[in-house]
Each structure stands twice: as C-alpha cells, then as structure tokens.
C-alpha cells in the first residue's frame, strides 16, 4: 500500500484524471496474457517523459515498484506487477513523432500500436518487418522491451535488429538518449540494444527510433502438405540450401490441422503429418523465381500436394487455416499455454519429435506450430480442466520441453521473454557467471530495485 501523501504527490504530478486507485482499475492492470496475476497499488497514465521521470524519482524516495505496461498482451508475465506498486500505463504516449523518408527511420512514442505503425510506414512505401501475432494490440515500446519477433523473423530478424535509438527514463529517474538515426554508430557501449528484451527492468522506454527498409514489391504464398513430418523438415533445410530465405516458413503439425478443420474447415488434410506455409517476397520477377525453386524443393522432398496461390484471394485462402489456428485451440481448451522454445533450425525435426513424445508421456494435447525457418517452435499446451492433477502434468511437460530445447543447443525463449514464466529455467541455460553479469547490470542501474522487480531472475540465484 502506498501512503496517502505519496498518492497525493503522484496526483500533483499527473493530475487526478490520470491516477487510478479504485479496485476495479487495479484489477484490470493485474494481469497480462499469461495466467499470472497480482494487484498493483495504483495505476497511472503519464503523458510524457518528464512525468515518468518525476514518478520514478518518487518511487526511489519512497521505495515502491514501478511496472511499465503497453498493450498487456505479453506472454511471459512481464507486465504483471508481481510485487504490487505502480503500473505505468503508457497508452497516452501514442504518437508517431516522425517518419523520415530521407534517412528511412521512424521515431515513435512507446504506446503506438504495432499494426498502426505498420500501416503508417507502408503508406510511405516503407516496411517495418517484425510482426508479432499480437501486432494489432501490442505496442512499439512493449515490442522493444520484449524483443518481439514474428513469422517474418526468418528473413528479416526481430525487433532488436531495427532499433537505432532509444530515449528512456532510468530506474533512478534520469533521462538518457542513446543511439540516433545513423546506421553506423560505435560511440560508447551499445546500450540501445540492451533495452531490447530488457522486459522493463532497466528503464522506461519513452521514445524509439527505428530503422525502416523499402517495402518489397511483391509476395507470394505456397502451401505444401506432407505425409511425413520428417520430409517437411527436410524441405526447410533444402530450401535454405538453395540460398533462398523465404519471408515466412510456418509449420503446422497434424494435431493443429485437426483442430483447425474441426473449427473452421479450410481444406487442410487431417491425415497428413504436417504442412508448410511458405511466403516469399522481393521484386516481382525474383518472387516468381523463388516460388519456382521452393515448389520444386517441396516436391523433391516428398510433398504429396503443393498449392501455389495465383492471386490475393487464393493467398488469403491458404493463410485462412493458419490464421484460425489460435481460435481453434482457444475454443477447445480452458487455457492455452503458448511456449516458444527455440532451436537451431536444423534441429526442428528433433524438437517436434520431442514435443510429441513429451505430450504423449504426460497425456496432454499439444498442437505445435512453428516459425520453422528460424527454429522458433510454438508448442501450445491445451489445458482442459485446470485442476491440480492436470497442472502437475503440464508443469512437468514444460520442464521437459525446455530441457529438450536446451539439449539441442537451443534457447528458452525465442520471442516471448522470461518474465515470471521461465525464471526457474534460467540456470539451466546460463552458468552462474553469466547470470551474475546480468544481475550486476541490473543492480548498477537500479540500485533500489524499483523497475519491474521480481522478473527474469529468481531471488536466490
């Protein structure tokens, strides 16, 4: 609980209409897209960097936690105020400050919705590739803090590959301006990138400058059906060996297709072990060339059917099943736990097999989707009853999946972050010295442990 005089001070900084202490408001900022929750003591909606700096100075004086929050659609508990305190709701800071068509950069406030940003830059013939599937709700600040990825990651990388500059309020309330508009910049430490994936623990991002690229002229889509999952996996490496990197390379397993067809039939076979949805982009001529090679490679590797979209309508049809996958899962379970263990892409078939074995061992339904091109797997654990017995099996299965991913040379998280969900696995991936280095950075910039405490690391580590 915050002392009344602290609340009074907060109101003085932000105005009464931007400070919320009703239980109803606190409840609405107690959760994200995971099952974690904890009530904050207060929710505030600042309008600018100065207000945030003032709030954080106050937090250091009176020692209360501050948790920055965008759309609240993150998948690892990152914005859950697990130790209470103050939630900084950043929706009022939602301006696109500039799209610089000479330097191909854009500067935005943290509350800009990702899809709104996409639309704005594409209007200028430019392209910002990261496309987290929550892009219609997620914010640019949140995307940086979680280092969001998306299906296009295989060709275009993730959020961190597009950040050129950051303005942020440090955990002690100072304002730092890092990086800028230049592609090349080696002055001092690269602290700009440090904010990517910092999960709101190292600073409140108040302004970001992104690199943009020209919008590809054309794109086309292929759907390939495989009787054997192994053949689908072989196709992935086959395509890459041809020196072609598709824009997206999505794998759906049999269970996923069964669920989709049961919910919104879109012509996917339920008797095939897997399907690949592949998109290529570039100049019109080059896209046709890429699609030709990809089609041939699918057939060579044993695809039983290959569909190439000839126009936008057909393209939408091919994507329809993939797009409804999440809905199909959500409708068939009480809870969907979306994991994102990631392995080197050559290990995708092994990882898929491991997931299937683990699912069978713990009698769980785990339809698996994957951004296969970059090894980013999404086993989605369907929780049916949510009782103690089932949750025990679920927890054990998740443990084993992470172990499997790490054994294959992978990582705990490709794009969702550690947050609360994966804290206990950190020591599986990192040795003590590595974790100590991360914690030393946190301690150096946040001596009072104000910003998003209780995340990423376990207390006793």
């Amino acid at each position, binding site marked *: 609980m915050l002392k009344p005089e602290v609340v009074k001070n907060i109101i003085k900084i932000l105005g009464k209409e931007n400070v919320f202490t009703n239980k109803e408001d606190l409840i*609405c900022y107690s959760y994200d897209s995971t099952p974690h929750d904890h009530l904050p003591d207060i929710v505030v909606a600042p309008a600018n960097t100065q207000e945030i700096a003032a709030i954080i100075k106050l937090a250091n004086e009176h020692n209360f936690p501050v948790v920055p929050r965008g759309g609240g659609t993150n998948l690892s508990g990152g914005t859950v105020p697990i130790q209470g305190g103050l939630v900084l709701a950043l929706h009022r800071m939602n301006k696109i400050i500039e799209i610089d068509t000479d330097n191909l950069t854009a500067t935005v406030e943290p509350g800009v919705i990702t899809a709104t940003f996409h639309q704005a830059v594409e209007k200028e013939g430019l392209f910002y590739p990261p496309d987290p599937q929550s892009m219609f709700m997620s914010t640019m600040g949140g995307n940086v803090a979680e280092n969001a990825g998306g299906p296009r990651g295989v060709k275009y990388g993730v959020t961190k590959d597009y950040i050129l500059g950051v303005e942020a309020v440090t955990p002690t309330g100072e304002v730092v301006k890092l990086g800028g508009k230049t592609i090349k910049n080696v002055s001092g430490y690269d602290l700009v990138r440090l904010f990517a994936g910092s999960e709101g623990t190292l600073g409140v991002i108040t302004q970001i400058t992104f690199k943009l690229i020209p919008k590809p002229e054309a794109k086309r889509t292929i759907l390939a059906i495989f009787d054997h999952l192994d053949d689908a996996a072989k196709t992935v490496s086959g395509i890459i060996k041809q020196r072609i990197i598709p824009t997206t390379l999505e794998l759906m397993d049999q269970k996923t297709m069964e669920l989709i067809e049961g919910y919104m039939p879109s012509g996917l076979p339920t008797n095939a072990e897997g399907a690949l949805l592949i998109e290529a982009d570039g100049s019109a001529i080059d896209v046709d060339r890429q699609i030709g090679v990809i089609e041939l490679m699918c057939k060579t590797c044993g695809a039983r059917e290959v569909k190439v979209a000839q126009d936008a309508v057909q393209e939408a049809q091919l994507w329809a099943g993939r797009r409804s996958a999440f809905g199909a899962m959500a409708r068939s379970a009480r809870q969907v736990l979306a994991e994102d263990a990631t392995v080197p892409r050559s290990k995708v078939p092994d990882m898929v097999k491991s997931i299937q074995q683990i699912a069978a061992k713990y009698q769980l339904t785990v339809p698996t989707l994957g951004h296969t091109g970059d090894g980013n797997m999404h086993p989605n654990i369907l929780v049916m009853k949510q009782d103690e017995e089932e949750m025990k099996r679920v927890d054990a299965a998740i443990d084993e999946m992470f172990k499997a991913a790490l054994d294959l040379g992978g990582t705990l998280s490709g794009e969702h972050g550690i947050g609360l969900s994966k804290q206990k696995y950190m020591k599986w991936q990192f040795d003590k010295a590595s974790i100590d280095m991360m914690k030393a950075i946190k301690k150096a910039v946040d001596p009072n442990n104000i910003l998003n405490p209780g995340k990423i690391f376990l207390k006793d580590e």
Partner: protein
Amino acid sequence: MELLDMLREETDKCIRCGLCQKVCPIYAEMGSEPFVARGKVRLMKEILNGRLELSGRFKEIMDLCLDCGACVANCPAVVKTNHLVLAARAKVTSEKGLPLIMSGALHGFLPNNKAQALAVKMAYFYQHSGLQNLLRKSGFLKTLSIDLSQKEGVMPEFAPRTFRSMLSDLPLKKSGKIKVAYYLSCMTNMVNPDLGKAVIKTLEYHDCEVIIPKDVQCCGTPHLAYGDTKIANQIAEKNARLLMETGADYIVSDCATCGATLKKYDDMVSGIKGFSDKVYDISEFLVNIAGLRVGKKTVKGIVTYHDPCHLARGQGVKNSPREILKSIPGLTLVEMQDADRCCGGAGTFNVMHYDLSMRILDRKIKNIQNVSPDYLATGCPACTMQLEHGLAQHNMTVPVIHPIKLLAETY
C-alpha cells in the same frame, strides 16, 4: 443459480489474449484496460467469485459498452462479453435501482403506446412551431448547459402523426402467398411512418399478406440495456403472444435492434419455443424467403451501406441488404472502409456519453466522406439518427435511408 453458473463459465472462457483490443470502438478512444472486453470480463469474474463489490466505478465501466458485439465476433474463445455486460447492468439495476428519469422512460413511456402518440405530437410541435429554432438560435439551451444543447441535436425529426394512428386509414391486402406479421417498431411509429408504408408496399409487391398487430409494444431492448430484465420479459411475453395470434408464417421487422431482440424472445419467455425462428429482418426475409423482386423505376446515384451492429453481428445479416441495394436499377453500391464498425449511436449511448460517442462517429463520417455517396443506406433507426447528426455536423447533405425505402421507389 443456473444463470450464475452460465456467466461464470463465460468468464472462464477468456484466455486473456487481448484480441478484443483490436476491434472495440470504445477502447480505440480510451486506450485503457477497463474499457475493453478483457477488462470487463475479468471484473465480472471477480464479482461472480465474490471478490469485488458493486460500486459506482463498476457501473461506470459497464455503462461504457456499445453492445456492438465486435469483441464477441473477434474472440478466439467466443466469450459473449455483451451478455456479461447486460448481466452486470441487470445486477446493478436490481440491487441499486434505476435513476428516476430512466425508470420513468422504461416503465412509463416506452411500453405505453398512448404516451408515445402524445410525445410525438409534442415533439412535432416543438420542431415545427418555431420553438426549436427559437431555442437553438437564442442559445437558451446553451445557457442551461452546453451538454444539453449538443444532446438536443441528436434528437430525430418527429413525424406529425404516429404510424399507428394512420393504420386504420391504410388498406391492407387481405390475401397473399405468404402471411407475414409486420412488427411495428417505436421509431417507425414515431419518427419514420414513411418507412412503414414502404415496408407494406414492398411486402405486398412480393405477394405477402401483411398483418400488423397494433398493440405490440417497444421490443424491450432499452430495458435490457439498462438492466431492467423483469419489464423486458413482460414486454416480450405480450409481444410474442400478439404476434403469434396473427397466425402468420413469418414475423418481419424493419429495425435491426428490434429484430435482434425479437430473435431472443425464445430465451426470455417460457413456452413460446419456435417463435424466434419465425423472426426475420425485412431484407433477410425478402432475399432468403420471398425471393427478391425489383421494380422497373430507377434510383440514380452511388449508395454506401452502413452495417448496423444488431443486424450484422446481432443477426448475422450482412449480404441481404447489399443484394437489395445492388439490384436497384441505376444505383451503384460502393463499400466504405469498416462498414460494420459501430457508429457510436447504440440506443441512448450517444445521449448519455455524447463526447465519446461523437469521437466514434467521426471515424465513421470520415469513411463515408471518402466514398462521397448520394445515399447512405442503413437498416437501423438508432444508427440513422446518429449518422444524420454526424453528417449535419460535417455539413454533408447525404440522406440516410433504409434500403427498403430505396427498393420501394423502384415499384
């Protein structure tokens, strides 16, 4: 208890993905979590589990919902947030009661056909005697409150006589291939009797025998919206009985909202199973049941169509009105962007939350401006009022018209 379990089950379905943020018109303006489905569902869950008390803030949050159904249509788990919000309002109303003016309107005025007739006369007098002009020009309303003067602008143009009072002078055909009961909506009755005439003309052109039970009342939507379930159910029972007694094969409504609620009567009244299956929106009926017949006269120009929430999502009717518009000789249908996005009217929402409603409306008007049509067609009187208000504020003279009125002009 059964209802509670059902509601609890509904709140449990939410997986907190936040997809509702993408489509909620209120959230698009407010940007904060209490004002999106995910937040409201969570609050209901806390109430149902006894961890939260009913409060002023709770009511305020639940009141800010348009019941447009966009969140439900977009929800992977199909959480019926609109039902949860109505249930929340019902709980507030049953425990805290309604403000006097509301209970007066809901209990006295709306279900009372005589009171409606009197009100129409008074409103017509106000609008046509010069009193309205006088008050508007004098700025007198602004001296009372700026808010009141703005809200007065949303008020529709009333007709000189109610449609109900004209019925005895209207000769209806006594035979036809299909027997249709035409449900007389409050707005057709008070504001738009011409629509009633167009509906009769169109139905008879389709070889229907039209029966109009004069004593039907308001459909009960406003009561449901304000949480007055008891009165709503009483009204539903009476209306269902009157409509069934006609012996008609089909029941037709020209109001998107009335139609949506009539289709819910089966769940509101016991012992009338099968009633709702007979209910059709007029455009849906013409296209899917009667077989659309178009006359030879032309209506020249470009038309764009606004989907009423209670028709597009409330009843799943999106194609029929468009088919009707496309079939009219001389008329070209040009789609606007986000045609099925709520206009912010939502019954009395525009009066209760004027500024917010206008922000939602502005987005709609921009999309209409981009088409710059000769006609704006829509099948909902609440949308019509709201759109007319928005167009007038932007100095646009596009007439807002029911698709059936355009169709009737071809005969």
